[in-house]
C-alpha cells in the first residue's frame, strides 16, 4: 500500500462518511471543543461519566476526513474506559502518529484505530488526527 492509500483507507473513509456517535449528548457531564485555527477543523466532544468511567461519548464536527474519522473511531473505542485508561490510550495514539519507525498497528488488537497509523507519513495532518482526542481529554477534566 502506498502512503496515500494507507492514509485514506476504506476504514477512514467509512468513518468519515458514516460517523459513529455523531450528535450532541444530553445530558452530559463534560463537553469541549477542539479547533484548529490553521485549517478550520472543528470537533465538539460530549461525554457522560458514569461511575468514574466514560459512560457515553459523542461528537459534532466539521473538517477533513482525518479529523472526523479520528473522532468517530475514538468515540467507538473509549466507552467504558476510566480517565486514566483514556489517558493511556491517548498516549498510545500519539506514539502511533509520531513514531519514527513503522508502528505496530494491528487491526485485530487496536480495531479501527490502527487505520490512523497512515497519518504518520503526513506530519501536516497529525494535528487533524489528535484534535478529537485532546477535546475529550479536556471534556473529561471539565466534567464531574
Amino acid at each position: 500500500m502506498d502512503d496515500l492509500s494507507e492514509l485514506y483507507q476504506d476504514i477512514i473513509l467509512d468513518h468519515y462518511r458514516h460517523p459513529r456517535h455523531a450528535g450532541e449528548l444530553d445530558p452530559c457531564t463534560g463537553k469541549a471543543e477542539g479547533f484548529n485555527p490553521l485549517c478550520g477543523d472543528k470537533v465538539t466532544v460530549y461525554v457522560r461519566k458514569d461511575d468514574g468511567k466514560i459512560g457515553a461519548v459523542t461528537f459534532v464536527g466539521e473538517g477533513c476526513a482525518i479529523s472526523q474519522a479520528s473522532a468517530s473511531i475514538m468515540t467507538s473505542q473509549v466507552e467504558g474506559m476510566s480517565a486514566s485508561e483514556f489517558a493511556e490510550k491517548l498516549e498510545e495514539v500519539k506514539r502511533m502518529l509520531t513514531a519514527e519507525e513503522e508502528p505496530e498497528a494491528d487491526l485485530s488488537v487496536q480495531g479501527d484505530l490502527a487505520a490512523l497509523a497512515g497519518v504518520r507519513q503526513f506530519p501536516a495532518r497529525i494535528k487533524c488526527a489528535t484534535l478529537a482526542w485532546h477535546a475529550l481529554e479536556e471534556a473529561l477534566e471539565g466534567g464531574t
Partner: protein
Amino acid sequence: MGERKRNPWRGDFPILGTEVKGKPLVYLDNAATTQKPQVVLDRLFEFFARENANIHRGVYYLSVQATDAYDQARARVADFLNAAMPQEIVFVRGTTEAVNLVARSFAGPRLRPGDEILVTIMEHHANFVPWQLLAEETGAVLKVAPISDAGELELDAFENLFSQRTRIAAFTHVSNSLGTINPVAEMTRMAKSRGVPVVIDGAQAVGHGPVDVQAIGCDFYAFSGHKLFGPYGAGVLYGRKELLDAMPPYQTGGDMIESVSIEKTTFREAPERFEAGTPNISGAIGLAAAIEYLEKTGWKSIRAHEEDLLAYATAKIGAVPGLRIVGTAPEKVGVVSFVIDGVHPHDVGTVLDTEGVCIRAGHHCTMPLMRRLGISGTARASLSFYNTKEDIDDLVTALGKVVSIFGNAGG
C-alpha cells in the same frame, strides 16, 4: 516535458527544476509566496559576500555603498509603483505591517466614536483585523461592503456605504482567495470625491503587473516583496509624502530621529521616520533585483501568458466531476479556488501533495469571505508566469486521484 521546456522563464528559477517525493515540483501556490529567480539569489549573495555594511553610518566606503544600494532600491520601487518620489516609499516587513502602520499612525488619531471605517467582505485578515481592532478601540464602526455570489464587489453597495462619518476606506486590489481584480481606481474616486482617504492592499496585485498609484489616486498602497519574487521580510508602504510627513512615528528608536535630548526627541521626515532601527537592507536590495528582472522579462508577455494559462486552467479544472470553481468574476488574476463535493479542501491538498502538486487549502485568511460564501474553505491553485499548461494537466490528473479515492467511499 515539452511545454515546460518551452516556457522561457522557468530556467531562471532554480527551485522549479527540483523534485518533491520523486515527482517534479508543480508549484501552484504563488498567491502564498512566489519563487525566487537566480538573479535575486545572486544579488543577495553578492551583497553579503562583498557589500555588507549597515546603512546611514557613512564614514566608510562600504557603508556608503550599502546606503546607495538601499536608496536605489527605494527608487526602483517608487518607479514600479509610479510614486511621485522615492520618499513616498517606506520599507516595512510586509503588507501586514504596512496596514498596521497606516491604521495606527494615520487612521487611529483621526477616529472618534461613531466614525466609520469602510472595508469589503473579501479582505485578507491583514486588511480586516487591524481595522476591526481600531474600531473597537476608538468606538468607530466597521462597515463591510458586500460581494456577489461570483465574487465581484457590489460597487453600488460599496458607494452607498459612504456616509458623512466615513473616515477611511481600506480595500484589496486583488482577492487572494478568489482572484477577483477590484476596480480600485473607480473605488478610490468614490472615496476621494467624498474626502475619504484610501488604503489599498496590493499584496496579490503586484505579482501580476506594475501598479500606478498616481493613476489610481490612492493615499496608501501596501505590498509584500516575497509575493513579487523577492525575499521575505521586505515589504512596501507607499504613502503620499504630505500625509506621511504629518503622521506620528509607528515605532521609535535609532535611525528615525533628528535629535534626541533628555527632554525631547524630534523625528526625521518620511520615509526614515517610519524605519526605526536597522531595516531589512538585503531584503530591499533583493526586491529591487526582482523588479529589475521582471522589467527585463517584460510585463506584457508575462500577462499574456498568465491570461492564457488562467483560461486553460479554468476550463480544465472546472471540468473535473463534482468540482465547483469559487470566484468567477470576469476580471481575475491567475487564481482558481475550488471545492469538491464531499471532500474537504485539506484532503484535496494532501492527495495533491503526494503527486508533487503544491496548492493551498483552507480559508486563506479570509474567514469573513468564506462565511459569506457559505463554505469553510477552498482548495486554491494560484498561477504565475513560470507555470505551464503541463502544470495544470498534472494538477487535473491529481484531482482525478482525489475523485477516485473519495468517490468510491459510498458517500
